[in-house]
């Protein structure tokens, strides 16, 4: 039931546009691998090429020892779940789930039991005779999942499966899918633009950007040890501080941020620092900064700071660590775990920090 998926040097050109360039990764057997990236990063195209719905311009696809590259969609035996459910609108829930079994000419008895089992598994048994338009979004996606699982595929491909659902339903379904995967252990490849979703569900994350793979690693590695500036900025939020490399540190104004030993002396560089890695003290820090704004996020405070050089810095700190510091007060700042990258042109420093 569990087979690894191996993708080697996959490329896809649409006209003169390179949607996917040289994508290589392995989705381990029985695990959940997330393809994470912003929209237009080519992640859905990779998934569709694995399913056979899109023909690669170059590269090879394997499922275990078997090469899929030239096989038809029908021969690949993948389960595919679409963002907009793609249920057959003129068929009942029961008929939808049964479709793949009918196509593969399963015995009537076998079909009935399998459909009943699956509907039980996705908690949709009482809705067997309903039509898709009579169901909610979450229910439809559960039916779509049962339908994809019915012919016992060796791998499950999910294309933004929660993308069309509202936040609460998405949360519930995500947790439920996690449990289901633990139960079934089928190799799964999940396309998502939601980093939280990827972090929560996946054993391995493939970060994609502009058709290329930026980094492959465990959720922990991706977050703590981003390989590229893009990963550092896209997964989790980060402050970006531009400066010059001097003696293994990124210098900006009076600030010296460590961790740039791998960069050339004198090169322009960007240091990425997570908001929760910005330590705020009343005294005894490296740099003095001015508090510009304090916003309460429950037990945490989101503090906007202005550095002596004029750059802004966002910190997430427990409220008690502020010791009553408010707008206009001077505080001391320490930076933990900065990641320095070569940054060709020092851009305007506007960093994305989610609340």
């Amino acid at each position, binding site marked *: 039931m569990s087979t690894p998926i191996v993708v080697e040097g996959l490329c896809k050109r649409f006209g003169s546009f390179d949607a996917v360039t040289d994508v290589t990764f392995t989705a381990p057997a029985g695990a959940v691998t997330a393809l994470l990236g912003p929209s237009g990063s080519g992640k859905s195209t990779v998934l569709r090429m694995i*399913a*056979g*719905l899109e023909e690669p311009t170059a590269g090879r696809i394997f499922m275990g020892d078997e090469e899929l590259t030239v096989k038809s*969609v*029908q021969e*690949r*035996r*993948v*389960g*595919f779940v*679409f963002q*907009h*459910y*793609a*249920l*057959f*609108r*003129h068929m009942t829930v029961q008929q939808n789930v049964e*479709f*793949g079994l009918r*196509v*593969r000419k399963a015995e009537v008895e076998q079909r009935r039991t399998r459909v009943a089992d699956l509907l039980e598994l996705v908690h949709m048994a009482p809705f067997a005779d309903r*039509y*898709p*338009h009579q169901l909610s979004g979450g229910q439809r996606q559960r039916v*779509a999942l049962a*339908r*994809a699982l*019915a*012919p016992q595929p060796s791998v499950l491909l999910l294309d933004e499966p929660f993308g069309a659902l509202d936040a609460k339903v998405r949360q519930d379904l995500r947790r439920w899918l996690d449990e289901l995967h633990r139960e079934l252990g089928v190799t799964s490849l999940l396309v998502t633009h939601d980093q939280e979703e990827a972090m929560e569900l996946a054993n391995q994350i493939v970060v994609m950007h502009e058709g290329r793979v930026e980094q492959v690693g465990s959720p922990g590695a991706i977050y703590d040890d981003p390989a590229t500036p893009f990963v550092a900025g896209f997964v989790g939020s980060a402050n970006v501080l531009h400066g010059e490399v001097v003696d293994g540190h990124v210098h900006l104004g009076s600030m010296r941020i460590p961790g740039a030993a791998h960069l050339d002396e004198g090169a322009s560089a960007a240091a990425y620092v997570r908001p929760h890695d910005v330590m705020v003290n009343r005294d005894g820090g490296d740099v003095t900064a001015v508090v510009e704004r304090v916003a309460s996020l429950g037990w945490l405070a989101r503090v906007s700071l202005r550095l002596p050089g004029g750059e802004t810095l966002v910190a997430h700190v427990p409220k008690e660590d502020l010791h009553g510091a408010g707008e206009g007060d001077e505080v001391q700042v320490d930076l933990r775990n900065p990641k320095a990258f070569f940054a060709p042109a020092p851009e305007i420093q506007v960093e994305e920090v989610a609340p």
Partner: protein
Amino acid sequence: MSAAAASSAIPITPRGRWGKRWILIGCLAWVGLLLLLPLVAIVITVVRSGAETVLDTLRAPDVLHAFLLTAQITVVTVLVTTAFGVMVAWVLVRQRFRGRSLMNAVVDLPFALSPVTVGLACVILFGPGGWFAPFFQQRGIQVIFALPSMILVTIFICIPFTIREVVPVLEEIGLDEEDASRTLGASVWHTFFRVTLPNIRWALAYGIALTTARAIGEIGAVLIVSGLLQGKTETATLFIYRAYEDRQTPEAYVVALVLASVSVALLLAIELFRHHEERERTRA
């Protein structure tokens, strides 16, 4: 000051309401007089001519043959335009190729072209001394002044109806369901008959109803290519045309009423299909 503001904020005055009512009355008169009056006139004339005339007309061999011919042409036309119409619509929506927009425009040609022109073109191709005449003559197949050419021109004229009904529905449904079917192991044919066809069935029925109505009522192109051989190449519309010319007006009216009744029945069917289609479209 507040009173002034309030009065300027209310645009519906009694006069405005009357304006609306007059437009409605005008439209009712327009629809009633121009669309329904001719139909009513035929019904009254036929009723006045008496049951005997009606029965005699409907038993006349020429009339029966005319109905048979119209039915034959219509059935073949519907079968051919439906099969090819679905194919063309599918290609137009699902495939991107050079010349696609040209094909899209050419499909509507029969809407713009006068049927008489179509008939003349058919004569040029298949008529005496025509381009393809020798080919069929050698094989002893009579095309012009016979059923084949009459079917051919009717098909030509009816080509756009199915395509224009099916294309928007296919576009709206999108590719997802077909993709899902294929990932579940269904072949292209299985996918078409089990997934695509059920999704477009009402649009298809609507297109077939329109095609039928058009095929039954066609006269211009058929008039040219038929050669007007009484009792041989005379469709129902051509019978009406000749009977009227020969001053057999009661017979002409009776046949006209039959055609009009079929059209009204089709119209009701079309409304039903449209209703179903709209209901289906609101599902997602």
